[in-house]
């Protein structure tokens, strides 16, 4: 039996889902922009407290993970299944590294008493409270997407192992890639807004 897969339909569905994600994060970016406009000095001071080296390292890690993901799709399309699997493992390793670095960043901040609703934070000016509130909300939501994306990539890896995602039928891996690149896209904006605007 021959089943014809509708790749356009499959990818269209994925893109429509990504649009809802773009508007979800877009709303939060709008909130950030409005409060940056209202408390420029407080945002400047609060932003200085974030570690630019860790933020930049995570940017490089996530961009590299996107690169490995794109290579993995190219490899599978060219019939290089083993290489595609290795590249997926590389993508997952980068995702893990991103989360570990994020964990240390958050831990350091929480250790210094800066977390939502903490007495230390509430004693500060309103703009700084808002900055760190948005920082935890937006990087936290993004981190959740990294975890989910890692899950989807792991699932794609299993499907390749089982022979259900193949060089002839790879749309699942492509859609997993689209999701992963969206995670990278969001970080591309989060990094300058929180770490560099100061």
């Amino acid at each position, binding site marked *: 039996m021959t089943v014809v897969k509708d790749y356009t339909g499959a990818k269209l569905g994925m893109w429509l889902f990504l649009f809802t994600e773009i*508007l979800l994060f877009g709303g939060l970016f709008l909130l950030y922009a409005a409060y940056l406009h209202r408390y420029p000095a407080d945002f400047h001071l609060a932003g200085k407290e974030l570690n630019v080296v860790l933020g930049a390292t995570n940017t490089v890690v996530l*961009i590299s993970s996107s690169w490995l993901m794109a290579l993995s799709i*190219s490899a599978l399309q060219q019939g290089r299944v083993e290489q595609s699997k290795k590249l997926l493992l590389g993508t997952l390793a980068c995702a893990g590294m991103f989360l570990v670095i994020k964990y240390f960043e958050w831990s350091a901040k929480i250790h210094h008493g800066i977390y939502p609703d903490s007495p230390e934070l509430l004693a500060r000016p309103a703009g700084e409270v808002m900055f760190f509130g948005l920082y935890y909300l937006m990087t936290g939501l993004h981190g959740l997407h990294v975890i989910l994306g890692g899950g989807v990539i792991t699932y794609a890896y299993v499907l390749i192992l089982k022979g259900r995602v193949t060089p002839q039928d790879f749309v699942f891996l492509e859609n997993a890639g689209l999701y992963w690149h969206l995670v990278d896209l969001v970080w591309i904006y989060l990094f*300058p807004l929180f770490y560099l605007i100061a």
Partner: protein
Amino acid sequence: MTEHHEEHHTVTYKLNSIIWGLLLVLTAITVAAAQFDFGFLNVVVAMTIATTKAGLVILFFMHLKYEKPLFKIIVFITFLLLAIAIGFTFFDLAYRN
């Protein structure tokens, strides 16, 4: 047996790697640019570089460059809507006392 009859464009390893290199260079530029104070332009410079990076990811890593016009149109509309939402909010904010 699963088959599909649509044409697929495979992005070469080389092109993928060039895009990766460009993204790393742009990251370095945005970090370097942040060491200088351009005043109001700080945000503009950072967002312009970020949008250039986003464009590279969408066009090449997400294959939008090789997709049908339908995909290009709907992606454009989505970002247009986002720009309208953000732009109109600032028309409001900028003219408040």
